[in-house]
C-alpha cells in the first residue's frame, strides 16, 4: 500500500502541512530509536558481577541465551503462548466481529462499547481480580467445593492455562475491533451474490469473506501476537514466578539482577523474534491467498 500525500488545496500552504508531521516523527525518533540504539550497544557489553557493566564489543550475551536451555525454553514458551492466544482470539473474535459489523440493531454502539469496556480495566487490576476469583480458595473453587462438585480445589492459578486465559481476555478486544472495521468495509451484497451463485455459507466464507477480510485478519493477528509476546503483568500475576515469559525475564535482568547487557540482549532477541515471526506469517498467508 502506498501513502499519498493529501492533494494541496488551492492557495494552501503545503510547507505547513509538511511541517505538521515533524513533531510526531521527532518524538518517535528520540524516544524509540535513540534508546534502542543505546540498548543495542549495551547488549554487546560485558557484565562483571560487582562491577555492573563493562565496556566491550562481544556477543557473549547472545551466546549465553541460545546455549542455555532455560532461556531457550522461556522463548519457546512465550512463542507458544502467543501463538495459542492469537489463534484463540482469531477463532473467537471473528464471529463476534462479524456480528458487530453486520448488526442492524440500534444497540450496536452499546455492543461496541461492551467490547471495549474490558480495556478500561488495567491489566494488573484485572489479573488481581482473577487471583481472587480463581485462587485455590477463590470464589470459583469455593463455590464448586461448596456444591460438592469437586473435592480438591482446581489448579487454575499459576499455570499456563491461567496465563493463556488472561492474555486472551486482554487481547480479544483488539482483535474484535480490528476485524470489525475491516468486515464493515466488505459490502453485504457481495456475500449475498455468492449465496445466489450457489455458495453455501462455508463456501462463501472460504471463497469470499475470508480473502476479503484478510487485511484485517493480518492486522488483528499481528497486533495480538505482538501484545502477547510482550505481555508483562498477566504472566507475572497469573503465571507466578515459575512460569517465566520473555517480558518478565527482561525486567528481571534489569531490575533484579542488574545485568543490563544480558537484559538488553534478551530485549533484542524478543524484538527480533516478534518481527521475524510476524513477517513470516504475513508472507506465508499472503502467498497462500494468491
Amino acid at each position, binding site marked *: 500500500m502506498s501513502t499519498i500525500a493529501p492533494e494541496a488545496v488551492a492557495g494552501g500552504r503545503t510547507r505547513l502541512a509538511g511541517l505538521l508531521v515533524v513533531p510526531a516523527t521527532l518524538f518517535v525518533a528520540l524516544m524509540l530509536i535513540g534508546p534502542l540504539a543505546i540498548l543495542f550497544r549495551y547488549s554487546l557489553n560485558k557484565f562483571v558481577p560487582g562491577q555492573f557493566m563493562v565496556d566491550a564489543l562481544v556477543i557473549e550475551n547472545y551466546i549465553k541465551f541460545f546455549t542455555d536451555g532455560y532461556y531457550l525454553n522461556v522463548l519457546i514458551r512465550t512463542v507458544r503462548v502467543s501463538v495459542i492466544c492469537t489463534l484463540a482470539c482469531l477463532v473467537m473474535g471473528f464471529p463476534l466481529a462479524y456480528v458487530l459489523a453486520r448488526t442492524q440493531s440500534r444497540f450496536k454502539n452499546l455492543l461496541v462499547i461492551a467490547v471495549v469496556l474490558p480495556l478500561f480495566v488495567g491489566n494488573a487490576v484485572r489479573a488481581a481480580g482473577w487471583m481472587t476469583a480463581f485462587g485455590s480458595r477463590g470464589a470459583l473453587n469455593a463455590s464448586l467445593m461448596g456444591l460438592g462438585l469437586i473435592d480438591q480445589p482446581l489448579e487454575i492459578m499459576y499455570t499456563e492455562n491461567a496465563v493463556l486465559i488472561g492474555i486472551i481476555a486482554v487481547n480479544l478486544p483488539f482483535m474484535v475491533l480490528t476485524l470489525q472495521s475491516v468486515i464493515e468495509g466488505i*459490502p453485504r*451484497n*457481495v456475500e*449475498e*451474490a*455468492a*449465496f*445466489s*451463485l*450457489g*455458495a*453455501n455459507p462455508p*463456501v*462463501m466464507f472460504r*471463497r*469470499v469473506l475470508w*480473502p*476479503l477480510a484478510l487485511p484485517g485478519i493480518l492486522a488483528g493477528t499481528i497486533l495480538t501476537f505482538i501484545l502477547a509476546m510482550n505481555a508483562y503483568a498477566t504472566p507475572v500475576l497469573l503465571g507466578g514466578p515459575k512460569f517465566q515469559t520473555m517480558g518478565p525475564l527482561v525486567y528481571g535482568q534489569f531490575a533484579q539482577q542488574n545485568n543490563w547487557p544480558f537484559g538488553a540482549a534478551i530485549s533484542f532477541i524478543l524484538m527480533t523474534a516478534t518481527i521475524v515471526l510476524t513477517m513470516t506469517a504475513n508472507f506465508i498467508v499472503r502467498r497462500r491467498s494468491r
Partner: protein
Amino acid sequence: MAWFSISHLRKTYGDFIAVDDVDIAVAKGEFLVLLGPSGCGKTTTLRMIAGFIAPSSGRISIGENDVTDLPPWKRHCGLVFQSYALFPHMTVAQNVAFGLETHKVPEAERGPRVMEALRLVRLEGFEKRYPRELSGGQQQRVALARALAMEPQVLLLDEPLSNLDAKLRLEVRIEIRELQQKLGLTTVMVTHDQEEALTMADRLVVMERGKVRQIGTQRELYERPANRFVADFIGRSAFIGGKVMALGQFQTSGGLSVACRSASVVGPATLALRPERVAIGSEAEGLPNRFQAKVVHASYLGALLDVQVALNAHDRLLLQIPNRAGLSEPRPGEVMTIGWAEDAGLVFGEG
C-alpha cells in the same frame, strides 16, 4: 402456463406490512418488471424470491418446485445487484466461473461456458482484468455474465441500471432485453424508473405500499389504469376532482359538466385526463367536452411544450403541445379553446 409464481406473499415487520398478499404468475421466458415508488415493497419481494428474506406467509415456486423454504444457494436464481457486487479479489473470469464451481460443473466445461457468457455481454478479452480496472458499464456486464453463466432458472435484476450514466443506461436497457429474449430467460426486474420499465418489460407489476395495484402490459396500464395511483404513476395525468351525477355524466368541483364514458358509479370521483388526449383550438371543434381555458404556465421541453391551463378557479388541466414549425408559444393569461372526447377521460371513484 405459469413457470414461476408467487402466491399470497406477505412480509410484515412488527406492525409494518412491507409486502401485502402479492400474487404474481410469470410465464417461461417472460420479462416481468416490478415497478413502484421507493418503499412500495418491490425490492422486498425480489429479495424474498432470491431467498434473502423469509416471507411471513405465502409460497414461491419455480418450475415444479416450491422454493419458499430453500436457502438462496439452492434456488438457482441469477441475481444482478444495483451495485454489481462483483468479487473484488477475483478476475473477471474467476467472477464468472464462481457460480459454475459452486454448482460442480466439470472443470473442462467451465472455461468454454465462461467465455460464452463473456461473449454474450461483449467482454471478450477482459478475462484477466480485476473489477476495479473496469468502468461501471463493464462491471455491470460482468455481473450479468456471472449470473447468466450458471444458467439460472430465473434471472433477478435489482435496479441494475441505476448506477449507470443516462446515455449508457439507454444502451444497456436494450442489450439486456435482447439477451433475455435470445436466451428465453424468465426474468424479474425491480425498478423505480418508469421509462426503463416500459422499454424492457413484457408485463409490469405496479406496486404501492406493499400491494399490487395493477398487473398488465404497457398499453393496458397506460390506457386502462385500474386506479388513480396507476393513472398517476404510469405516464402523466391531470386529475380533476368532482362527482359522477349520472351514467356518463361527471361534474367537476368547479361546476363544469363533462361527458365521460367511464363514469358509472354515482358519487364523489376523480377524472383523469392524459395531456396528449386534450385537443387545442380548431382541433377541439366537434368534441363533446369543449371549454375555454386560460394558460397558467408553459414550459419549453424541446420536443414538447408543457402547458398548465385553468378552466375555472377549481379545475386545472395539463396539455402537451408538439413543438411543430411555426408554433406560437402560449403566454400565461392567454385564453384558448380546448376539448376532449367522451372516452378520453377516466373516472375513478373515491376510496
